[in-house]
């Protein structure tokens, strides 16, 4: 049954009120993979934290400032003006082009877990009342990896933003890089999205790329690195090769803070490290400086 769904050729048509656009309220997010219960331990300082308290602090440890990963809907709530988001391209759905074992099931599980249709959602939103074309990744969706749907949604986001002269903000959490299960088609999404950014630059509107934990591989090595301004969240892992691969290849001890946002800032690879509670304000300020 699931397989049928993915192998393409579904036997129905979709009729959208406006093709490619539908208004959508954030869906309730299913509980995360993090251990259940009222309490959890901070990965940064090992303090035991009250889950409610963490929620009130934008999922940041009040003791050490460690940024816990957040899902797509939660990110949207924090970044965009309330009720301002209109989802685009939600009707693009993954298929299983290579017949890769376990892939359809993986996507269906990810949909159930995240309440998202794919690893990125795109649409129109407002940030401090400034209209933007917005893309938001969710790491919980197959590692935030970029397959055909993610590549196509982002490409359409840039194309539509150019047509409507909107700034673009994309919050990446593409730890999985290019999605293995779609093989070479995923790799080519790197070319598709990068050239879309190049075209978008013609309209002289800003593209602000926000890198959150983790942004790696093919996501980092394509559109996410091509922002006019690149911002990262504190402590976010940012890099091309996974740390284990680097360690196995070089047989060296990885330096302290290797591939963190701060490391990338120090090495000149990004513009700013911005704590989550300040992100909205910082993005808005940058947008205003371009208007």
């Amino acid at each position, binding site marked *: 049954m699931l397989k049928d*769904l993915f192998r*393409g*050729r*579904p036997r*129905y*048509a*979709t009729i959208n009120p406006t093709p490619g656009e*539908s208004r959508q309220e954030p869906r309730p997010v299913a509980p995360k993979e993090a251990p259940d219960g009222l309490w959890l331990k901070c990965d940064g300082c090992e303090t035991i934290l009250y889950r409610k308290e963490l929620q009130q602090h934008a999922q940041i440890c009040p003791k050490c400032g460690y940024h816990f990963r957040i899902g797509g809907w939660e990110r949207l709530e924090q970044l965009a003006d309330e009720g301002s988001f209109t989802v685009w391209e939600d*009707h*693009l*759905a*993954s*298929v299983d*082009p*290579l017949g890769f074992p376990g892939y359809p099931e993986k996507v269906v599980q990810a949909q159930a877990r995240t309440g998202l*249709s794919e690893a990125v959602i795109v649409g129109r939103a407002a940030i401090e009342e400034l209209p933007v074309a917005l893309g938001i990744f969710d790491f919980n969706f197959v590692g935030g990896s970029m397959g*055909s*749907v993610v*590549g*196509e949604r982002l490409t359409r986001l840039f194309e539509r933003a150019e047509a409507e002269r909107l700034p673009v903000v994309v919050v990446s959490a593409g730890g999985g890089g*290019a*999605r*293995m299960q*779609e*093989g*070479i*088609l995923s*790799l*080519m999404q790197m*070319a*598709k999205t*990068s*050239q879309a*950014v*190049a075209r978008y630059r013609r309209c002289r509107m800003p593209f602000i790329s926000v890198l959150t934990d983790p942004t790696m*591989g*093919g996501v*980092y*090595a*394509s*559109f*996410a*690195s*091509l922002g006019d301004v690149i911002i990262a969240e504190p402590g976010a892992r*940012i*890099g*091309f*090769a*996974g740390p284990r*691969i*680097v360690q196995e*290849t*070089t047989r*060296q001890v*990885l*330096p302290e803070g*290797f591939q963190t946002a701060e*490391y990338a800032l120090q*090495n000149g*690879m990004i513009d700013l490290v911005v704590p989550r509670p300040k992100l909205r304000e910082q993005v808005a300020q940058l947008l205003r400086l371009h208007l």
Partner: protein
Amino acid sequence: MAATDFEWERPLIELEERIRELESFTDQRGIDLSEEITRLKRRADQLREEIFANLTPWQRVLLARHPGRPTTLEYIASIFDEFVELHGDRTFRDDPAMVGGIARLNGRPVTVIGPQKGRDTKENIRRNFGLPHPEGYRKAIRLMEQAERFGRPIITLIDVVGAYPGIEAEQRGQGLVIAEAIMTMSQLRVPIISVVTGEGGSGGALAIGVADRVWMLENAWYSVISPEMCAQILWKDSKRAPEAASLLRLTARDLMELGIIDGIVPEPMGGAHRDKEATARNVKEVLVRELQVLEGMDPDALLEARYQRYRRIGAFAEGQSQELASRREDGEEGQVPEEAGLGGQAVTGVGSPPAPSE
């Protein structure tokens, strides 16, 4: 059997040795064994056909990694009339894992770029096994922009396991520079032809592979991830790479079917290393023919076609919102004729490669 021969070739190689023995016997003793030799040669042809017509994806991966396979500089020496290698990224250093320069193809100046593996251990260490650092990609970008300034077409020869996953490579922006290389290639106003000659390892290959025409050698592979890493992720066992190689659909024929490449360059029976000059001739023929077509194109049309070449790649269903998907699971399917599904079959780009320019 030499150390560089493969197990599956053993019967053939033994037969070839036997034929050589008989031939030298004929020469030395003057005894006519031609009938027997002819018979054995026919058998060898048959065997060769059997072995090499049905190579598994993994066998092709191994052929692509054969230590005797021609390297980028060997192709350059065979294909072009002259070549001046240019060095350095003008920022940090010269990366010996990436070579490039100006060459002449049938009298026409072109820029040639490609990763370079070593011929032996010593050279491999110097060239970091053909795994480029960011400065290698920066050199490639520099040479491509230089080519554009002088209206020179660009040819990239791709044989790379991947961009080097090292500490300093990360420090100096490996991911970022790959993105920049990809973006740069999408904007260059001169023809670009890429040929995957050996290994096409992920972003490190794509960074020099965004082109108007992409060809692959018959036994080359090109994939989002190496079979070993894929096997490691799937089964925590890199020894199962042969299975992963089949799953990933990474052979030239696979990529042709998926609409990613424009054509397959034939290799001599047994692989490119069996006859390097013949392989180089085949590559040259493709380059000359494709260049002729591309040079006739207006730069704006060229850029638009290149954009569309990548724009259409991707497999997805359109018009399948989640609500509809779940409704189908509830059994409310089949109310709409299949043809009306439109996007349901919008497997864009798959199976529709650009028409080969023959």
